[in-house]
């Protein structure tokens, strides 16, 4: 199934991309997807411990099982205000 990954801030700038499409197996968790991304791009390593995950624009547990068409966002530490 197809899912979309959204990137912001530092990770977006490092990869030079704000979106990635991925074909993944049904039942994959959001946490596994993001962990795989960090392995695929070792330049993101420093972000691995601090990334939060959003699924379809809501903060989500790493255990969240993904569905076709989901939008998964890597949320690095926020800095509004």
């Amino acid at each position, binding site marked *: 199934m197809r899912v979309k990954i959204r990137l912001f*801030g530092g990770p977006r700038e490092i990869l030079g991309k704000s979106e990635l499409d991925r074909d993944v197996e049904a039942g994959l968790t959001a946490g596994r997807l993001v962990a795989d991304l960090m392995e695929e791009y070792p330049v993101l390593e420093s972000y691995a411990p601090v990334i939060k995950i959003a699924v379809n624009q809501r903060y989500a547990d790493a255990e969240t099982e993904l569905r076709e068409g989901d939008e998964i966002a890597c949320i690095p530490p926020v800095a509004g205000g």
Partner: protein
Amino acid sequence: MAEQKSASLFEVTTGELSVDDVVARVANPSIGALASFVGVARDHTDGRQVRYLEYEHYPGMAEEMLQQVGDEIRARWTTIEKVAIVHRVGRLEPGEISTVIALCAAHREEVFDALRYAINRLKEIVPIWKKEIWADGAEWKGEW
């Protein structure tokens, strides 16, 4: 109890912010107290001169989370009648306004606590990011 959904109460914009404009979004004759917080782009950090700031946000989720901050406030302090939070993104020069929060109640007691909660919560959960650009480098700020 959800705050009435309105782009004008919880907004992310690239336009210049005006305190009066945001205050006007919550002001009405039935309230006796109105408090506002104004966040400003600072020209230095840890002894370094900041040339400018670049803010970015997650469109959709950022506005939703601003609304959530408003909902949380109205759940915790039932006397707070209305909350507006507007954040600017894009390039900001030092001295420009990055965020304006305004909230109101019949009486003054709770507006101060609610205002502090609003800015602290914004900094915790709202997906907005800030990059500082110095003369000799740049850095994405933020910590959980």
